[in-house]
């Protein structure tokens, strides 16, 4: 498996911290369609190959468009179908889209842990 770089642009950053088995998504993510999310997906897939327990920290992700929500759904379903991974999503209850849309991902994978701080 190739080394996957973290991603940083003016609008958002994606960082995988192997030590805490956490991927941090920050900023404003509104890419043009699901295929444009592949680099983000690659960071998530690499992270989940490395740990049986993974956390995605979304607390500082202020905006995610519906293509991004689809990308997260795709990742959650891949993890669900793998079967042996404990997945936690960390959200912030002061970010509206997270309070509105994250609970739907739990419907795709009931064992998914969703924590709001």
């Amino acid at each position, binding site marked *: 498996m190739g080394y996957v770089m973290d991603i940083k642009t003016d609008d958002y950053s994606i960082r995988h911290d192997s030590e805490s088995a956490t991927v941090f998504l920050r900023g*404003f993510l*509104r890419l043009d369609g699901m295929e444009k999310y592949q680099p983000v997906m690659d960071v998530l897939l690499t992270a989940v190959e490395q740990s049986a327990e993974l956390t995605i920290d979304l607390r500082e992700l202020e905006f995610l468009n519906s293509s991004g*929500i*689809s990308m997260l*759904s795709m990742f959650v379903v891949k993890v669900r179908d793998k079967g042996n991974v404990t997945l936690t999503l960390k959200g912030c209850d002061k970010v*509206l*889209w997270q309070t*509105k849309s994250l609970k*739907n991902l739990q419907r*795709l994978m009931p064992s998914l842990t969703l924590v709001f701080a």
Partner: protein
Amino acid sequence: MNSTMSVQIYGEFLAAVPPSDEYLTLNFSPHNAPRKQRWKNYGLSADFLGDYFAAFFPDAAVPDSKINQRDTVKAAVSYVTNELLENAVKYTTTSGQHPISISLHLYSRQIIFHVTNCTDIALADGYQQFIQELLAADLDEYYLQQLEKAAAGSGQSSMGILTMMNDYATRFGWKFATLDTASNIIQVDVLAYLDV
């Protein structure tokens, strides 16, 4: 099937948007920049409209929420505007010379979004098929079904409209009107109603 179509209406489509004291319209000229640059501008416009309309609301507490009313309006308007513009771009024909237009009308408990774009028959047909499927389905079930479809990466899931409806309780009306029979240009008008 729509070659003889003149006007098709779906959902809650008001013949005329009621007069409002506060409204704002943005028109995006066609083909003025590459799609990537325009895409960034739609995001900026969504944030601007969120800030603009949030300014009419107090920072009062919202029951069962840690987000005050002003910030709730800001984030909801920004999300809905962004998805409506992304959708308009997705369903806009590249051969036309027609702008995409978005207007927001403010009322005491509601914001009405009106988006206009022009498309061709093939795109309009696909859009109308989705709308018919959506209106015939149970929203909650259909949402989960389309989310699974998006997760499987199989074709268009239209999660934009579904998240607006399911997560933000936005209601919709659509009008498809043949603008120019010779060139088969269809004007799509979308009305989205967001309670605030």
